[in-house]
């Protein structure tokens, strides 16, 4: 166990945790916004793929890094528009549309990639975000190393703060929380249920795409097929894990990342020699389920989640 303790107190471990958590935080915030407005967005996995692809491709074609982030966001919002058009005014099954959007976004990214780069055998690299040097902070002994992160990681945490602030401190956030709970209440107060829900899904999808772009613009420097590798589905779980609250969801993402970073390191310990590596890989998923069980009684599910709203029907 002392090995585990040594890992847990090392600054490089916490630096890894923050890196691994960043894309999850971004995409989880995106999913959280959608679900708070009452729409389950299973398009997340594909939207992360399209974000990873377009963000990277934009930078490869000459845009600055933040231009890549903006491109990814725009691409994500486009698929968010598709998702929300089908699920909100038309009220189609959010499961089916979500899975359809994932399939469409993923295959669109791959198809476009192959059309644009038919002849390469390893994807070109871009110059990704580098860890920021923050005067004072970066020179601190332990903290400096743990907080040696790229601008996009800092942005992820800022986004989480912004989402929390907007949800709980602004009229917009109030409306979003209300529309996921009782759309009739929103309509009765003269607000557009359709507008709020579509807006939430579009903005949320934009954030998911930025989460995907983190992988190609910060965590790594080029795009690979299948590199999103189920991270979107994890974010769906993290939203539930966080009881639909941004703060708790960020904690969940950090916890998940910590287990991921830990399992990578544990594989090298005596424990890792005996136990199959699949157990370590499964650990974050198993713990998510355990956490769900532990907090099941306290969660406040948005009451109108997955319930389409048709004007006048009550």
């Amino acid at each position: 166990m002392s090995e585990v303790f040594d890992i847990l107190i090392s600054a490089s471990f916490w630096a890894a945790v923050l890196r691994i958590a960043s894309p999850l935080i971004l995409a989880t915030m995106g999913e959280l916004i959608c679900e708070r407005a009452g729409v389950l967005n299973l398009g997340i996995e594909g939207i992360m793929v399209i974000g990873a692809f377009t963000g990277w491709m934009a930078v490869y074609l000459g845009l600055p890094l933040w231009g890549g982030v903006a491109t990814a966001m725009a691409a994500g919002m486009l698929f968010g528009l598709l998702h929300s058009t089908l699920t909100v005014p038309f009220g189609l099954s959010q499961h089916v549309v979500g899975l359809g959007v994932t399939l469409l976004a993923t295959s669109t990214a791959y198809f476009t990639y192959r059309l644009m780069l038919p002849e390469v055998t390893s994807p070109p690299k871009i110059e990704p975000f580098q860890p920021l040097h923050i005067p004072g902070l970066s020179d601190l002994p332990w903290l400096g190393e743990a907080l040696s992160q790229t601008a996009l990681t800092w942005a992820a945490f800022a986004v989480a703060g912004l989402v929390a602030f907007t949800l709980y401190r602004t009229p917009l956030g109030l409306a979003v929380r209300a529309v996921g709970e009782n759309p009739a209440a929103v309509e009765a107060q003269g607000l557009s249920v359709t507008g709020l829900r579509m807006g939430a899904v579009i903005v949320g999808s934009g954030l998911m795409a930025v989460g995907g772009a983190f992988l190609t613009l910060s965590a790594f420097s080029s795009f690979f097929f299948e590199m999103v590798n189920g991270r979107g589905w994890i974010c769906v779980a993290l939203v539930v894990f966080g009881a639909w609250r941004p703060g708790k969801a960020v904690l969940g993402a950090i916890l998940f990342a910590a287990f991921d970073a830990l399992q990578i390191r544990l594989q090298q310990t005596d424990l890792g020699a005996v136990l199959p590596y699949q157990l370590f890989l499964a650990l974050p998923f198993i713990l998510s389920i355990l956490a769900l069980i532990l907090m099941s009684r306290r969660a406040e599910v948005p009451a109108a989640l997955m319930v389409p709203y048709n004007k006048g029907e009550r």
Partner: protein
Amino acid sequence: MRLEPIANPSAVRRLGLPVLALLATLGVAMALATIAGANPLAVLGQIATGALGSRLAILETLNRATPLIFTGLAVAVAFRAKLWNIGAEAQLYAGAIVAVLLGTGALGSPMVLPVSALAAMLAGAMLLLGPVLLKTRLGVDEVVTTLLLNFIMLLFVSYLLEGPMKDPMGMGWPKSPALTPEARLPRIVEGLRLHWGFALAIIAAVIVWVMQTRTALGFEIRAVGQNPEAARFAGMPVNAVLLKTALLSGGLAALAGWSEVAGLKGHLSQDLSPGFGYTGIIVAMLALLHPLAVVVTAVFVAGIFVGSDAMSRAADVPTYIADMLLATALLFMVLAILLTKVRVVRG
């Protein structure tokens, strides 16, 4: 805008809109082919030929539809009770594991096929039982638990195939030993891949249909799905109904894995299913959760994929076009099906 139900949709509407959705998909196919530098007109024929143009094509389409019928039924049964089982993928693998456990010599008798099929169903059922118990007892959201179990299951399969279930004769490749000949489902057409699993899937669809429309359990499942509160007040054991639904749904999904192993592959590997569990959700929803329609939509989904995939080779465009067209067809089709029943009105 508001959606208003149409009391008696005309035949033109009911048939025309899905046809329109199909045509729109073909339009997208032509556009994509043009972008990729292929002949847009040739593409249409290539999709049709690829899906239905030869005995090989038809049998391959039906073959790919087989697991989708099972997973589609599994989802249809569960969703009917508003039990959001997103875990058909995991249940599929549970069935596949059982097919290997019992089919590689553990059972030698002629009983091996029925016994392993039932055991597979039991395994899939048990796998879904956990999340449903968590739902009914503790209120844990089953969308997330079933989704997460998919990943845990895949890792478990990976562990099995690299550990206890690894084929000693497999040259180190992570796969299970091959099933004994008597544990295999025979082919329907010798030399081609279509096997009796397809026939079983159709039979399963009929059985589920009869169950849903003609039995008390089917009635209870629908009642619980429509209004669990009312069902509870009417004296239905809602949780027990959910559990029965879970057993049935998990069992059906497991049969998909069982039939893929016993009928098609003859062994278990990590990539047994290219997402059949997830596609099953699409199949079920396209079928409006009707068990017989699941057969049709499974063949439709398989046909779109097989046809588009074949077209990608014939037209020399990236193979990913197949998934794009499948997704497009799906989204157009769910919208078309909705619009056969409602009209968009102002206010």
